[in-house]
């Protein structure tokens, strides 16, 4: 039940921050891309999907952490899935009530948040073993890290693929769009590109650390 902690950093802050970069679910753990790549062809959709996933993650982490001592070990995965599925259904109705158009754009992929490996992963790895507050922070951090990664994806795809950002023209004058970026292939390529960049930055940082230079 003890939360993992870095001795120098207050446990709570670390729980939140680790999800943003060091253990970023998409770039580091390479998780949860399944339902999200298909709808990340515009910045708005990517942001909406990321935030929806974050809401589900935080809520399910909270509930699972709160009832963690009541769940028998054998049925824990089933219980997690039940809780997650309920919150996904709730979020789906919320999105429909807020914006029919957004719901039409995201479609069945909102429902697919339930099989996003990140949420089940965090429930199993963290929320079921830690207290409420750290679990909520973990969810927030991972969720924001995930949203950040999705936004990077969506923004690049929209700017290069449609010449706009959030629907607003990004380039002055005429721009020949790279339609491939909005198509699935573009999603694969863009994610590969960001992963490459991330790996490169991490490699450089590790190198500097081992050679003793000031990071």
């Amino acid at each position, binding site marked *: 039940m003890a939360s993992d902690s870095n001795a120098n950093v207050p446990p709570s802050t670390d729980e939140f921050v680790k999800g943003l970069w060091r253990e970023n679910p998409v770039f580091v753990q390479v998780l949860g891309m399944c339902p999200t790549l298909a709808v990340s062809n515009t910045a708005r959709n990517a942001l909406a999907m990321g935030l929806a996933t974050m809401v589900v993650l935080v809520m399910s982490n909270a509930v699972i952490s709160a009832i963690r001592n009541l769940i028998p070990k054998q049925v824990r995965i089933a219980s997690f899935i039940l809780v997650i*599925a*309920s919150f996904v259904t709730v979020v789906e109705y919320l999105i429909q009530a807020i914006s029919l158009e957004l719901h039409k754009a995201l479609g069945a992929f909102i429902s*697919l948040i339930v099989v996003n490996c990140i949420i089940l992963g965090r429930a199993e790895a963290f929320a079921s073993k830690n207290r409420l507050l750290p679990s909520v922070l973990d969810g927030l951090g991972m969720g924001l890290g995930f949203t950040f990664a999705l936004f990077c994806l969506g923004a690049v795809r929209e700017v290069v693929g449609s010449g706009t950002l959030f629907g607003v023209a990004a380039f002055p004058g005429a721009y020949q769009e790279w339609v491939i970026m909005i198509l699935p*292939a573009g*999603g694969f390529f863009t994610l*590969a590109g960001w*992963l490459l960049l991330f790996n490169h930055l991490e490699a450089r940082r590790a190198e500097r650390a081992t050679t003793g230079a000031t990071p």
Partner: protein
Amino acid sequence: MSQESLVSIFLGASLINNFVLAYFLGICPFLGVSSKLETATRMGGAVTFVMLISSMCAYGIQALLVAIDAPYLKLISFIAVIASAVQLVEMFIKKTSPALFRALGIFLPLITTNCAILALALFQTNKGYGFVECLVYALGGGVGFTLALVLMAGLREKLALAETPGVVRGTALALVVAGLLSVAFMGFAGLGGS
């Protein structure tokens, strides 16, 4: 309610709108399992089987939910059925072919979180397919998934022997290959006619 022919449903699910390469579904196992050809084919087979079962169950559940007017229970009942179907398949394989069970290992229970299966159930419900159409759709989806997986595995096995820059190796490279496969599959659009 749909006007598509069975052939076009099958071709659509397996090639034109391939679940992995067009919708990005089933990526987790796709990137994780696709490095060896043998595991890829086995995984594909297991997924196809679970898809067929889930498709039939989803059709039945949807009919039931419409009858009792409880559309909000759709997601939770679908995922429950899929999880149970995977459990059943697991037990079945364990009993009938222990060797296959060992070979598949951890991947079998992971099928539950395979987005492609849940997506199949959701898509077929949205499109309002009849029972036979659902089965054909599931078969097409499974075949398409297996095809993408096998192609990726073959390519990655070859790539593993080639010289690639360190920073690109691993997932980034797999994604680029996936992207190229996706572009290739776009060539199938329009197949099967209107």
